[in-house]
C-alpha cells in the first residue's frame, strides 16, 4: 500500500510541476498577478509530494519490503539501517528521485528567499524550473519507476553494492546532486532574464549567491567523492579521470567560470551575453553528466543499468534544453550588447582570460570523455582515453589560470597600469619560483613538474598574503579592528578560495611526485620497509560483520623504533552477492598518510599486502574545504541582503504604481 501511495504522490508532483511550468509563465506574459501567484504554492506543494514519495520509498527499504523491486535489488534484511536508508539512492531509479527532490528543494528555497524579486521575474524563474522538474519527474515515472512491484516477493534482497556501503557514500550523492541541480537555478535566472529581455546588473546580483551556493555543494560533493575513491577503492588513488568524475568536473569548471563572469556583470555590466551562455552551458553539462552517468553509455560503479530507452529520454531532454535556450538566446542577443567598457589591462581582462581558459579546459575534458563514445558508436574501433591525456592537456591550460588567479585581484576594474602592478608583485613571483625549485630540490625530486607545481603553489600563497597586506594597508591611520571590518565577506570568500587552490596544488604536486607504493607477500612476523616506515605483519583474524565475512590483518606501523599503532585492513566477502571487497586502513596525518590494504591470501597462508606512503594528500581535501568556505563567505555577503531589501521596497512601489 505504502509504495502505491508513494507512486501516486509522485504523479501528483508531476501534475503540480506542470502547473508550475505553465501558469506563472502565462501570468508573466499577460501581467496577471493572480496567475503569477500560482507558482509559489505549486512549487511548495510539489516539494511536499516528492518528499512524501521519497519517504515512502525509504520506508520500503527500512521495512525490507522485498515486494518492491528496487528494495529487493538494493537492500538486504541484514544491511545496517544507515545503508538501508542510503541504499535508496544507490541505484538508478532512487537517485533520479533524489535528483527531482533536490531540484524541488532548490525551487522551494527560491520561493522562500526571493521575496524581493519582481513578481514577473520570479514567475518566469519558477516556470523554467517547473519545466525542468516536469522533465525529470516524467522521466522517472515513464522509464524508471522506483515503486515497481516484484511479485511474488523474494525472501531476501540482493543487498546494496558493498562499495557503496560506506559513510562517504552517505553524503557524496546528496551533496553532488545539490550542486548539479543547483545550476538549474542559475539557468532559470538566465532564461527568465532572456524572456523578460532584462539582463542587467540586478539580474547578475540576484543570480550570484545561488550560483555560488550550487558551486559550494558541487565542490564539496566532488571532494567527498574523491575522498571515498581514495580510501574505499583500495589502491590510494584520489582522481582517475574516469568519465563519471569528468561528468561532475565539467560543470564545476564552467560553474567556476560563471561565478567570475557574474562578478563582472554585476560590478561593471559587461560580459552579459557571455554570462548567459555560461549559465546555459553549466546547466547543460550538468544534464550531460546525468546522461553519461545514468544512460549506461559508460560503465563504471555509477552506471547501474543499461537501458537505451533511458539514455534516449535524457538525451532528448538535453537537446530540448540546449536547443530552446540557444534559440531564445539568438532571438534576444541584440539586447545583450554593450555594458561597461574596459581597458586592455584591467580586472575585466584578467577575468575574461580566466573565463576563456576555464571554458577551453572544460571543452578538453568533454572531448576526452566523449571521443571514445563517438568512435565506438560509429563503429570505428574501441579506444580509451586515460589520465595521461588529461594530464598532458590540463597542466598547460591550468598553469596560466593559476598565475592569473593570484595576479588578477591586484588589478583595478576598468583600467590599470600593467608595469606598475607587475613591478609590485615581481618580488613575490621571483621568490615563488625560487621556493618552488628549491623545495623540489630539497625533497630530492627536481623534475619540471614538481618544480612547476610547487612554484605555482608558492606564488598563490605569497601573492595572496601580499594582497591581504595591501588591502589592510589601504586605510592608513585606521585601527587594526576597523581595517579588518572594512573587508567585505565576499572579498574574504575570494581570498580564501584562491588560497585554498594554493593548498590544493601543494597536495596534488607532493602526492603526485613523492608517493611510494610496495606490493609485498607477508607471513606472520615478517616485516617490510617503505619510505622510512617499517610494517610488521602480526597475522590475520576473522572479523565478520552483519552482512559480510571478513579477514582482518593486523599490521604494526613503526617509525624510528617507535610503534605508531596497528593498522587493520580487511578483506570482506559480502554474503548476499558473494562479492569480495577490500577495506583499506589508514594512518592519517597532516603531512602524510600511510595506507595499507590486503590483497589475496595465498595457499601457504601468506597475504599479499599493498603498502602506500602518501605525502601531503590531506592538503588536497584541506584545499577543497577552503574553496568551499570561500564560497560560503562570498554568498553570505551582507550586500545581497541590504540590496534585497531595497529591491523589495522597489518591487512594492512598482506594484503600488501599477495598481494606481
Amino acid at each position, binding site marked *: 500500500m505504502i509504495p502505491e501511495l508513494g507512486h501516486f504522490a509522485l504523479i501528483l508532483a508531476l501534475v503540480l510541476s506542470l502547473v508550475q511550468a505553465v501558469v506563472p509563465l502565462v501570468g508573466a506574459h499577460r501581467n496577471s498577478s493572480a496567475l503569477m501567484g500560482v507558482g509559489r504554492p505549486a512549487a511548495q506543494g510539489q516539494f511536499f509530494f516528492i518528499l512524501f514519495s521519497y519517504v515512502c520509498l525509504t520506508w520500503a527499504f527500512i521495512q525490507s519490503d522485498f515486494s518492491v523491486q528496487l528494495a529487493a535489488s538494493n537492500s538486504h534484511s541484514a544491511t545496517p539501517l544507515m545503508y538501508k536508508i542510503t541504499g535508496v539512492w544507490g541505484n538508478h531509479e532512487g537517485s533520479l528521485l533524489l535528483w527531482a527532490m533536490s531540484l524541488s528543494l532548490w525551487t522551494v528555497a527560491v520561493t522562500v528567499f526571493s521575496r524581493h524579486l519582481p513578481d514577473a521575474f520570479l514567475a518566469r524563474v519558477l516556470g523554467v524550473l517547473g519545466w525542468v522538474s516536469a522533465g525529470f519527474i516524467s522521466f522517472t515515472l515513464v522509464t524508471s519507476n522506483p515503486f515497481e512491484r516484484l511479485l511474488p516477493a523474494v525472501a531476501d534482497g540482493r543487498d546494496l*553494492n558493498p*562499495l557503496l556501503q560506506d559513510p562517504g557514500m552517505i553524503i557524496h550523492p546528496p551533496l553532488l546532486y545539490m550542486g548539479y541541480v543547483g545550476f538549474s537555478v542559475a539557468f532559470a535566472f538566465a532564461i527568465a532574464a532572456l524572456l523578460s529581455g532584462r539582463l542587467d546588473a540586478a539580474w547578475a546580483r540576484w543570480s550570484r549567491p545561488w550560483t555560488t551556493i550550487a558551486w559550494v555543494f558541487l565542490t564539496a560533493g566532488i571532494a567527498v567523492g574523491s575522498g571515498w575513491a581514495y580510501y574505499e577503492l*583500495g*589502491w590510494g588513488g584520489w582522481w582517475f579521470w574516469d568519465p563519471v568524475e569528468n561528468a561532475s568536473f565539467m560543470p564545476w569548471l564552467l560553474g567556476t567560470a560563471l561565478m567570475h563572469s557574474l562578478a563582472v556583470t554585476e560590478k561593471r555590466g559587461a560580459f552579459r551575453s557571455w554570462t548567459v551562455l555560461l549559465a546555459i552551458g553549466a546547466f547543460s553539462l550538468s544534464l550531460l553528466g546525468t546522461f553519461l552517468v545514468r544512460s549506461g553509455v559508460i*560503465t*563504471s*560503479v555509477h552506471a547501474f543499468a543499461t537501458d537505451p530507452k533511458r539514455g534516449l529520454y535524457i538525451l532528448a531532454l538535453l537537446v530540448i534544453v540546449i536547443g530552446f535556450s540557444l534559440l531564445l538566446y539568438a532571438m534576444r542577443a541584440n539586447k545583450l550588447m554593450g555594458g561597461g*567598457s574596459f*581597458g*586592455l589591462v584591467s580586472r575585466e*581582462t584578467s577575468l*575574461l*582570460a580566466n573565463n*576563456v*581558459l576555464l571554458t*577551453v579546459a572544460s*571543452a*578538453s575534458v568533454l*572531448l576526452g570523455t566523449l*571521443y571514445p563514445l563517438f568512435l565506438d558508436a560509429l563503429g570505428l*574501433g*574501441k*579506444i*580509451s*582515453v*586515460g589520465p*595521461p*591525456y588529461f594530464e*598532458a*592537456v590540463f597542466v*598547460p*591550460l591550468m598553469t596560466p589560470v593559476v598565475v592569473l588567479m593570484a595576479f588578477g585581484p591586484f588589478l583595478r576594474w576598468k583600467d590599470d597600469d600593467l608595469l606598475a602592478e607587475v613591478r609590485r608583485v615581481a618580488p613575490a613571483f621571483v621568490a615563488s619560483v625560487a621556493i618552488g625549485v628549491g623545495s623540489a630540490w630539497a625533497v630530492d625530486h627536481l623534475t619540471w613538474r614538481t618544480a612547476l607545481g610547487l612554484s605555482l603553489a608558492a606564488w598563490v600563497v605569497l601573492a595572496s598574503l601580499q594582497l591581504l597586506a595591501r588591502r589592510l594597508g589601504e586605510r592608513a591611520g585606521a585601527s587594526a579592528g576597523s581595517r579588518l571590518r572594512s573587508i567585505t565577506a565576499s572579498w574574504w570568500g575570494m581570498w580564501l578560495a584562491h588560497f585554498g587552490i594554493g593548498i590544493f596544488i601543494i597536495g596534488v604536486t607532493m602526492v603526485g611526485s613523492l608517493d611510494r607504493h610496495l*606490493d*609485498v*607477500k607477508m607471513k606472520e612476523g615478517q616485516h617490510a620497509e617503505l619510505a622510512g616506515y617499517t610494517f610488521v605483519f602480526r597475522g590475520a583474524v576473522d572479523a565478520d560483520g552483519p552482512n559480510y565475512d571478513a579477514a582482518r590483518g593486523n599490521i604494526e606501523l613503526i617509525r624510528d623504533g617507535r610503534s605508531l599503532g596497528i593498522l587493520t585492513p580487511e578483506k570482506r566477502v559480502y554474503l548476499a*552477492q*558473494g*562479492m*569480495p*571487497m*577490500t577495506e583499506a586502513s589508514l594512518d592519517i596525518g597532516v603531512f602524510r598518510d600511510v595506507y595499507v*590494504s590486503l*590483497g*589475496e591470501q*595465498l595457499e601457504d597462508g*601468506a597475504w*599479499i599486502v*599493498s603498502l602506500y606512503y602518501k605525502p601531503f594528500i590531506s592538503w588536497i581535501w584541506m584545499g577543497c574545504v577552503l574553496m568551499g568556505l570561500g564560497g560560503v563567505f562570498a554568498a553570505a555577503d551582507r550586500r545581497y541582503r541590504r540590496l534585497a531589501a531595497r529591491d523589495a521596497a522597489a518591487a512594492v512601489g512598482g506594484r503600488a504604481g501599477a495598481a494606481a
Partner: protein
Amino acid sequence: MKARSKRLMLVGGGVALLFAAVALVLSAFQQNLVFFHTPTEVSEGKAPTGKTFRIGGMVEDGSIAREADGITVRFAITDTAKVIPVTYKGTLPDLFKEGKGAVVQGKLEGGVFRATEVLAKHDENYMPPEAAHAVEQAQKAAQTVSQ
C-alpha cells in the same frame, strides 16, 4: 588605445589561445590514446609492439599462477579462439577470477603481454564491454568458418 585595436587584440589573443589549445589537445590525443585489440587480433600480429594497448576477454580456466615472490602473476586472456599469456606484478582487483571477463592494459613483449593495469569490474555479474566484444567477435568468426 583605440577601442577597435583593443578589441582586435582581445580577439587575436583569444584566437591564438584557441589554436594553442587545439594543438595541445591533438598532440595529447596522438600520444595518449590507448587502442583496444582482441586476443585474435593480437595473435594475428595486428597489435602494435612497444606501444601500450588493451586486451579484453575471459581469464582462461586454470591459467592463474603465482611466481615464488607471490607478487608476480601469470594468467591467460582468451576470446575463446586465441589465448594470450599475460604477466602482471601487483595486487589483482577483487573481482578478478578465472572464467570471468577482464581487461588488461600494457605492452606486448616477445609474445607475452606485460600488463601494467588490470581493470576491475564493479559488480559480480557485470562483463567489461571490451571483454564481451572480444568474445563476440571470436564467436562470429568461428561461425563464419563453420559455415
